[in-house]
């Protein structure tokens, strides 16, 4: 367990939307929303995540990988070939953007694990997570920044409009979008450090600083997670993975662990609920995300927005027709939805959970 790391700190703006009816919405909408919040970023990182963008490959894990140089690409591809069926390899399409003179090599792979490589009763998802952990922590110069099905993350160093232009975000259509602009306060410059942060089909954008980072990190390490990015966002993503995918908690219950109610409120609940909430805090105290944050996390069935326990970071939500919007600022929502039916500021620690209809 290495303790001698330098943690990454940044402020930021975020926005997201979801069509409950799985209507695929153009990426240009979310770009417009994000670009409004110029003073929440400083041009040192932006990114987008979208769900429903690869319908023709929806049964394959879409690995988006960035490489610093071709030799690394060769060794990663060797590893992938040995362990996965690879349906398709292609460069992630980009446009030349003046402000982005250099970028890593960006390649995407549609893959599925080879059955014979799964040990015993190992889940496919565990196998994929292991691959992501292995490549990201062990192979210098290679980084898997997206690994879910029918979804993808696109991110890099630049401001929101430049990154959108570069990755041709306007050409994708998805039923869930999240986006993020970043204000890093220490050494920037690594593409992998931008948001969204993803693992399998979880994607996270996050604004804030998690003051409990140190224990969240050590807690996750006990369960085999390797924290390579040293960002708060990474911690949030892995905690969701642990609580929801591995421990089988429902999303609302997981939210109760990550931003748990105060004891004084728990003590007032009826006996059964009090027992659950007490047990959650006793068991998952080290998973409590403490400090200012607002988070949007997307997954294959929906979008969730959540604030810290005393709401030290902004989060606004709005609804119009089949679409729910959530963003750091109301103006970012109104930029693409001038007349929402309902606008509200979710209360501290109370998640906004929106699920896709079947």
């Amino acid at each position: 367990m290495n303790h001698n790391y330098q943690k990454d700190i940044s402020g930021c703006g975020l926005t997201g939307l979801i069509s409950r009816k799985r209507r695929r919405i153009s990426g240009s909408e979310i770009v417009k929303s994000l670009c409004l919040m110029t003073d929440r970023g400083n041009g040192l990182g932006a990114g987008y995540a979208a769900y429903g963008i690869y319908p023709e490959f929806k049964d394959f894990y879409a690995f988006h990988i960035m490489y610093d140089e071709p030799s690394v690409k060769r060794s990663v591809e060797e590893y992938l070939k040995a362990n996965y069926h690879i349906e398709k390899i292609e460069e992630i399409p980009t446009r030349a953007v003046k402000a982005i003179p250099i970028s890593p090599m960006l390649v995407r792979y549609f893959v599925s694990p080879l059955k014979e490589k799964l040990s015993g009763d190992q889940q496919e998802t565990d196998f994929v997570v292991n691959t992501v952990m292995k490549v990201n922590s062990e192979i210098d110069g290679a980084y898997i920044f997206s690994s879910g099905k029918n979804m993808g993350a696109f991110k890099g160093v630049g401001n929101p409009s430049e990154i959108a232009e570069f990755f041709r975000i306007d050409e994708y259509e998805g039923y869930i979008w999240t986006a993020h602009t970043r204000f890093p306060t220490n050494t920037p410059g690594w593409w992998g450090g931008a948001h969204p942060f993803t693992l399998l089909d979880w994607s996270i954008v996050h604004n804030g600083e998690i003051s409990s980072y140190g224990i969240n990190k050590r807690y996750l390490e006990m369960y085999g997670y390797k924290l390579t990015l040293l960002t708060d966002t990474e911690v949030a993503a892995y905690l969701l993975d642990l609580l929801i995918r591995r421990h089988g908690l429902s999303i609302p219950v997981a939210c109760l662990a990550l931003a748990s109610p105060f004891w004084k409120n728990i003590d007032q609940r009826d006996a059964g609920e009090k027992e659950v909430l007490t047990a959650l805090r006793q068991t998952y105290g080290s998973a409590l995300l403490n400090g200012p944050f607002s988070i949007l996390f997307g997954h294959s069935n929906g979008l969730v927005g959540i604030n810290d326990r005393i709401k030290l970071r902004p989060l606004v939500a709005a609804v119009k027709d089949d679409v729910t919007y959530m963003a750091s600022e109301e103006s970012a929502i109104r930029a693409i939805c001038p007349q929402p039916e309902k606008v509200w500021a979710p209360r501290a620690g109370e998640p906004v959970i929106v699920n896709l209809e079947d």
Partner: protein
Amino acid sequence: MFKSLAPPEYLATIDREKCIRCKRCIQNCGWGVYSWGGDKILIDTFKCVKCLRCYHYCPEEAIEIKDNPTKFKQNAYWSFNNIRNIKKQAETGGIPLTGMGSDMPYPILFDNLLIDACQVTNPSIDPVREPMELRTYLGKKPSNIKVEKTKDGKLKLSEPMPPQIKLDLPIIFSPMSYGSISLNAQKVLATAAKASGIVMNTGEGGLHEDLFPYKGNIIVQVASGRFGVNPEYLNAGVAVEIKIGQGAKPGIGGHLPGEKIPLEVARTRMIPVGTDAISPAPQHDIYSIEDLRQLIYAIKETTNYKPVSVKIAAVHNVAAIASGVVRAGADIVYIDGFRGGTGAAPSIIRDHLGIPIEHALAAVDDRLRQEGIRNEASIIAAGGIRSSADVAKAIALGADAVGIGTAALITMGCTTCGKCYTGNCSWGITTQRPELTARLDPEVYAERLTNLIRAWSHELKEILGALGINSIESLRGNRERLRGVGLDSFTLDILGVKPAGR
């Protein structure tokens, strides 16, 4: 009889002009320093231990207790204590005893650790305006829980949690037995524990019936002497502790001389009056980790599965030992550092065996995490906790709670004179002499101890607020919020803490 060549450490002096011959000093000194000479107070300064009782109770401020300026010739290698102990041993052939924790100038790691605070990028939180949570639960936690939904949409726990001890803040009172301390001192601990929402620990001396009303705030201890142990005793408190070792005297047992065993102590310990109460060095039914496991489960069977704590001294291999203890089924591991207090220990043992709690705690927390069993047991760190800052630092290093003993005694008047083993404590704490114990009013001193705990809880909340977190569990094991100053890289590595500036 020849006069001792070990010079007195202190000079008790009386300003004869101020002295009104009220004789209060004679009455107050437990060590018999003063006596009445017919027209003035006589002083036998060889007996003075600088407990300062006489100083506080002299109505005329006539008393001064000075460090003896006549020392052996200054010598950076042969300290005063070295020479003095040799002289004493030459005279007696015995083992010099001592009380309290070691006062030797070993490095104090707590004083080389600094706590973080928020600026700009994360806001600090005002504990006066916002809730600040210190509540702590001790006991085994599952790695995950299962939650169901009932028919009416409410959440329900699928399997019950293992039993937990609820603390309003992460502090407990360390074990101090009736016998080593007075019943009144134990009453102070019990009353303050109840008022503060925490627990005290009986130590190895049984449970006196006067403490029965405080059962909800008591951990009962089982140690090598098995004093006062029967099924009723085991079931009396909220948990049972098996004492393997003590930080001040790791690897050695205890010896309460017959003079400290009057009727009440004897009854509570279930031994004859006036016999020496000997706690052997090991527990003679625990010669291995398997034996410990048997005792843990025997106690669990007897108590319908109350939490079992195992107290060990911080020794070199503490991480592996703690891991074994957890695997043997302990719900709590209590680690006692070498600075931990004692009622009586050979000075040579107290001052030279064991390791500091800071190293031990960090190593144990790391090891339990590496082995994936940190949730299986809570860690209590003890042995030299002096302030709420030490509490915060210990929690950040990985403790669930800390144990305080000496700090609690100081609220009762103790001045850490270190002469507890004599049974003469002028403050009525570590004595069974009725004229001395009577002066420790449980009600008065319970209020002082409760004040201390309240003060520390306020300070802890201020620290959490400055850290920008509103719950103690976000500090627990959060070494990212500690920095080391003036520590070498090995030590930093063991503590898992970065140097200041990183």
